[in-house]
């Protein structure tokens, strides 16, 4: 999680970027590349050229917006808002092209033969290898609506507060919590057979 000192550093870097300092951008990229790339990859269903392209676009947008940057919230909130805009546009365009989304991606982001059936036909307790579990989680994640997917990622992985998540998504705090609740219910239904004991 980004502490206050790092947060201050981010604002200073953006001010330097606004003055045309490319070295400041490089520092900012190194500091936040895993956060942005990881979020993009989680949202679009895996790492790869698309994730790389989108993550690069996030930093280029930050660079262009730097001269007019006003620190109204934490830098990471702004960074995630820019990421959200690009990723949601990408998801919308992709969903127009692809109707069927029942695919399973392997660890390299490649499509796996068989998709959902290969995961669900087996009893997970008989053969619950790490890879199968990963596939099932990815599939469940892919079936979440994009806002729910982002809320879960920001909460579980980035450990953001709901007030920040609400700003990223442009909803109320209650709305963000409601999205989290619905995501939890969806994931429970999809991953029910992987539960080791009733919850």
């Amino acid at each position: 999680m980004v502490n206050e000192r790092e947060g201050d550093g981010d604002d200073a870097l953006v001010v330097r970027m606004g003055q045309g300092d490319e070295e400041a951008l490089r520092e900012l990229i190194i500091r936040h590349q895993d956060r942005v790339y990881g979020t993009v990859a989680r949202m679009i269903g895996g790492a790869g050229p698309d994730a790389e392209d989108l993550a690069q676009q996030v930093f280029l947008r930050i660079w262009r917006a730097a001269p007019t940057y006003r620190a109204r919230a934490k830098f990471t909130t702004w960074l995630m808002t820019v990421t959200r805009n690009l990723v949601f546009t990408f998801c919308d365009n992709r969903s127009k092209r692809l109707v069927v989304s029942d695919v399973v991606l392997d660890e390299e982001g490649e499509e796996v033969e068989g998709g959902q059936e290969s995961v669900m036909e087996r009893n997970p307790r008989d053969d619950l290898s790490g890879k199968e579990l990963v596939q099932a989680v990815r599939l469940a994640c892919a079936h979440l609506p994009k806002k729910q997917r982002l809320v879960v990622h920001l909460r579980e992985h980035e450990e953001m507060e709901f007030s920040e998540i609400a700003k990223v998504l442009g909803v109320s705090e209650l709305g963000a919590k409601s999205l989290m609740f619905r995501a939890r219910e969806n994931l429970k239904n999809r991953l029910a057979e992987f539960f080791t004991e009733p919850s």
Partner: protein
Amino acid sequence: MKKTRDEGGDGLGPQLGRLWAADPVAKAPPWFAAKTMARLRREEDRKRGWFGLPRWVLLGAGAAILAVGWLRWDSQPSVADAELFAALDAMVEEDRESRWWAGL
């Protein structure tokens, strides 16, 4: 201390949280920063034209030169026009003489 997502029931909960964490989040490739910086420079260069001026300035200047040139050319009668009118006058005169000669 790391906050557990169970607190207040606002996270995925312990079991779902563990399942979710089974799929690790991807990390940026090692070349990511270098490639992004190269892309930035490429895009900045594309926006610039000759002499380090932005492309829109050069395009605007070019369009202004063409517009001024066209207006100046259009407002002056050309030699070609004068010759054309003289030739037409001569033809009319010749036709009038021919009709007189023929007693028309």
